[in-house]
């Protein structure tokens, strides 16, 4: 088992420092040679020519959240399986692979049940066929009567 010293993380730290340095130099230090004539018109959000209406921070459909929910469950599953996967080959070569194969298959099958449930409930398809809720239907009928 190769023992390692902490110098192993030195390149990661240096590279992060270099990226911060590159960012600071290219964005801020170059301010000197860069023209800067701010004007209100120039700073409007780009809306294909019309003037922007309202703020962008209105909320969105929930399906973005459901996707990230399924992602994090599979991410955690992957994270838990990495150590077991990294020793599987040693156990197979020794001939003991059956035990680990069994626990891995149980682990994966329990989570496949999860994705089958989400699939059947329609969480995975992106454009949901919304049935209009009762009060929305009433509003529509009300609007037709009035017009």
């Amino acid at each position: 088992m190769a023992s390692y010293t902490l110098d192993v993380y030195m390149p990661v730290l240096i590279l992060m420092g270099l990226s911060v340095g590159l960012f600071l130099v290219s964005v801020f230090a170059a301010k000197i040679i860069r023209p800067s004539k701010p004007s209100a018109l120039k700073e409007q959000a780009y809306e294909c020519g019309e003037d922007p209406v309202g703020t962008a921070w209105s909320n969105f459909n929930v399906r973005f959240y459901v996707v990230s929910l399924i992602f994090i469950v599979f991410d955690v599953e992957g994270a838990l399986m990495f150590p077991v996967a990294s020793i599987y080959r040693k156990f197979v070569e020794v001939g003991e692979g059956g035990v680990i194969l069994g626990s891995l298959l149980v682990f994966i099958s329990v989570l496949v049940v999860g994705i089958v449930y989400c699939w059947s409930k329609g969480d995975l398809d992106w454009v949901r066929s919304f049935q209009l809720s009762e009060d929305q239907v009433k509003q529509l009928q009300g609007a037709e009567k009035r017009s």
Partner: protein
Amino acid sequence: MFENILFLSSAVLALSGALGVVFTKNLMHACVLLLATLFGVSGLYAVIGADFLAAAQLVIYAGGVIILMLFAVMLTGGAANNENKFGIDKVAAMGSVKTYIYAGLTVLVMSFTILKILANYMKTFEQGELAPFESTVEKIGTLLVTDHVLAFEISSILLLGALVGAAAIARPRRG
């Protein structure tokens, strides 16, 4: 030499991120500062030889939980507007002075009790010679499969429960 640098930089990153989460008004800034804290804590794991934990922290927290938080902030009215249905603009960001006093008092009381408990322990514990760093992945893998296989399987059932429950709750409904 480099060990101290890595320790100091990740400790400063973690603590300043945590204090930033306490004192920032905007919720989106709080999420990004939590991301900085998580990177700091991942560096702290790396300094004490827990290399798999540092990577797992990055993958699960910085890769998953933070994005979940960002989406949740966006789906619940963004970071700025907090007026409720009566139209009153409630500043949800920071509590009132009263809550601060209570928070300060609890912090003081807790810190005194904990330091009291740890005081004699600090004196007796002398630092043994530390083992060189070993790669922990294989050991964690063998532990997960031999001694703690029950915890390993139950965590998959826990994940299934979390997935089904949260999907059922957060599914876009008609109403």
